């Protein structure tokens, strides 16, 4: 399985990563190698096997609907690269 440069950029865009032209070859090679390794799985018959998303056979606990949080905006926004009037700022979004 070989991942070509076009596919590489498509996947990178989905992941919001950009791949430098100089790194294209090494990424596409490395990813292709990983995909080859991963393709070993296809040799196993898994017909009818239920996929296992969680290692333990446990069920979800539910939380009581009670407010436990208070306003920590100023504290938490110290971590933010850009804020104004309590809002997080990002480059203009066009809809």
């Amino acid at each position, binding site marked *: 399985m070989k991942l070509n440069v076009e596919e590489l950029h498509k996947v990178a*865009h*989905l992941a*919001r990563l950009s791949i430098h032209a100089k790194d294209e070859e090494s990424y596409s090679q490395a990813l292709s190698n990983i995909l080859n390794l991963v393709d070993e799985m296809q040799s196993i018959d898994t017909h009818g096997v239920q996929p296992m*998303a*969680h290692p333990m056979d*446990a*069920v*979800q*606990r*539910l*939380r*009581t*609907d*009670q*407010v*436990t*949080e208070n*306003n*920590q*905006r100023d504290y*938490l*926004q110290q971590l933010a690269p*850009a804020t*104004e*009037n*309590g*809002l*997080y*700022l*990002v*480059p*203009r*979004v*066009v*809809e």
Partner: protein
Amino acid sequence: MQWEAVIGLEIHAQLATKTKIFSGSSTAFGAEPNSQANIIDLAMPGILPVLNKQAVEMAIKFGLAINSAIPERTTFDRKNYFYPDLPKGYQTTQMATPIVGRGYLDIQLEDGSSKRIAIHHAHLEEDAGKSLHEDFQGMTGVDLNRAGTPLLEIVTEPEMSTAKEAVALLRSIHSIITYLGISDGNMAEGSMRCDANVSVRPKGQEKLGNRCEIKNINSFRFVERAINHEIQRQIEVLEDGGRIAQQTRLYDPDLNETRAMRSKEDANDYRYFPCPDLLPVEIDSAFVQQLKDALPELPEEKRQRFTEQLGLSVYDAGVLSSSRPLADYFDKVVALCGDAQLASNWISGELAAQLNRDGVEITQAAVTPEQFAGILIRLKDDTLSNGAAKQVFAALWAKEGQTADEIIEAKGLKQVTDTGAIEAIIDEILAKNTAQVEQYRAAEPDKRGKMVGFFVGQIMKASKGTANPKAVNELLAKKLNG
């Protein structure tokens, strides 16, 4: 060519929980930006979600109300995409096994018939934050207070063929969620939002046309207008020999048009997978039964009871059952006055008009059901004439007294049925208007009917509306006709 539209709806209802679906932050509306966004809502590194029990219960109640089977297990998935109002870079939602399976709703059409619309499923998910595009030096501001608010997304089958049907379905969902108390259904505040999938095809064709999804429709009126506009647009494109591009369009109510959205174009591969931070939710059948037993009477059941047991017309029953507070008001009045038709007429008439004039909801009515029933009781036992009853209602609305009887007493509105007293008033009026009496007697019998109205008006006025109209008519006819 004859065209036929095919419409499906995706309705997002914010659930009326106190806290978010996966965190203990408040969901109260209108707070300062980001003051209700804690470390979980902000997707700080290392945070984890825990599911809100109330959201699960509310979703199950909805499922029961639309005749859907509730699965024994339901799971959560991640829908991956990047957007500034989506802090984790994925939305936690349900794709593989939603909490509400297939169900249906019957909607009432204008011709009085009903149509069954299948609900494909409904699932729980978290809401996103809000992007504010006002000027921050060319930047967008992001408020994450809404991020993580529980939503129930209700997805219908594409089984509606007119905008009116779509609106009827939306109204029906609106009454159910408000009846159940699981959402305030406020479209203006965004607690209920609707996306419509619209396509058209030549009448009689099996195959569906390419569809467009219209987003951002935030009122019942706009739903109808947006869908009608989109149907028209698609027909025009097709009749001009064009093709419909499958796309997401935004409805602009100011221009009454839809236009293609730019930002969502490439957001097409959401890479759903089971959320590893949330385990399967087991739904105990005894618990479901318990919720089922506690369900309130739903709009459809009420409508049936109003027609079948109370003898109301389909139309009246539909109006009265459309909102739970209105139906509750009606039920209380009927219980006290014992006359459903009278209660229906007066609630849909005088009370509705007054609410409309004051621009308030039934829950804010100044006249209580007990007071209202008091008026109707006096109307039925002939203590009040129709006109006097209206005066009592107005006085109670203006808080001039506590009960109908108190107002009747204070204002002297008791209906006069004593024929002697009425005769005296008639004599007085006839004596004052001898010319009109002459005219009446000279007129052809078929012209006389209209002229009677003049005398009745004068008599009622003189009696301040308290004279029994039936007695007045009888006595007046006798005297005029000699």
